[in-house]
């Protein structure tokens, strides 16, 4: 997966960190102190869909089959999407003043690719 650095318009991962103190959420979220709200952006030209490292999905397979047969549908663009996600644990207060620790799967975007 590519990291967005402003040098290219290709599909890449844009890092976006939010410090809970800065948004006033540190009164109810005990840990962690912030969240990596990373996201994917950029273009997915035809040659990037289905290359190693990009998302493999049923749709990718179907589109590749079309391409192999020379029937590439012109209107079918591939998308820049998260291809690797990681979980995150959060420790926070709820409305009833309980401390809750929740393990949330697929919370952080680690890599982006074309599908």
């Amino acid at each position, binding site marked *: 997966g590519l990291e967005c650095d402003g040098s290219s318009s290709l599909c890449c991962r844009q890092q976006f960190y939010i410090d809970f103190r800065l948004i006033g959420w540190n009164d109810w979220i005990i840990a962690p102190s912030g969240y990596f709200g990373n996201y994917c952006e950029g273009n997915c030209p035809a040659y990037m869909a289905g290359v190693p490292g990009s998302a493999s999905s049923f749709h990718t397979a179907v589109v590749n089959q079309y391409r192999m047969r020379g029937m590439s549908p012109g209107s079918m663009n591939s998308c820049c999407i998260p291809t690797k996600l990681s979980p995150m*644990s959060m420790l926070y207060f709820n409305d009833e003043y309980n401390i809750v620790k929740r393990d949330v799967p697929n919370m952080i975007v680690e890599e982006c690719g074309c599908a």
Partner: protein
Amino acid sequence: EPPSISPSCASCGLSQTDGDTRVDVGLLEAVKRHILSRLQMRDRPNITHPIPKAAMVTALKKLHAGKVREDGRLEIPNLDGHAASMNEVEEETSEIISFAETDESLTSKTSLFFVISNEGNQKLYVSQASLWMYFKLLPNVLEKGSRRKVTVKVYAQEPGFGSKWNLVEKRVDLKRSGWHTFPLTHAVQMVFAKGDRRQNLDVRCEVCEKLGIVPVLVNTADESHRPFLVVQARAADNKHRIRKR
């Protein structure tokens, strides 16, 4: 934060140009909504009177509160002492720490209750629940090095049965003041099974007073020793969850 203080902060664009601010504020709101939805909450909780820090710190210290890594994720040590990265966690689990409360409706001084929350009202399976209680040894009661064994009885009220109380009994070996745990898995499982959220308890120790042992209940003068209940739960229908794509 002024850029000079945290020059590498990715979200510092918030305080830069007007155009960037508009984009990033929208993004920020989207991320806030994302976090709340993943925690199955509609809004952020309204914290009007925070739990005393002493109570919170003690509870977390006593548990495996984990270590926050540089990337903001939390490392949770396994019970055998090895740290496991959250990358290994596949299943969505919750650990709920609830602090003891008391009110005027409770007749006995030894009574307390816990309100155990359940965000999103999802069907939870309680895999483990335990009560943590601090037993204070009054000074000059025991000779140095000696110890006392007492039987502590914790009565848990069954939901839906006003007069039925189940007993959890434990022999506690006291050499010094300290925390002790009492298994309450079955009692809390019954509370959840009935769709209830309140667990009433009554803690009895008949010979404690004679031996100079004080089980600490809800006491505003001793917040750091406030009893707490730890519930480990997971979504009951986890295996059959259907995801919308």
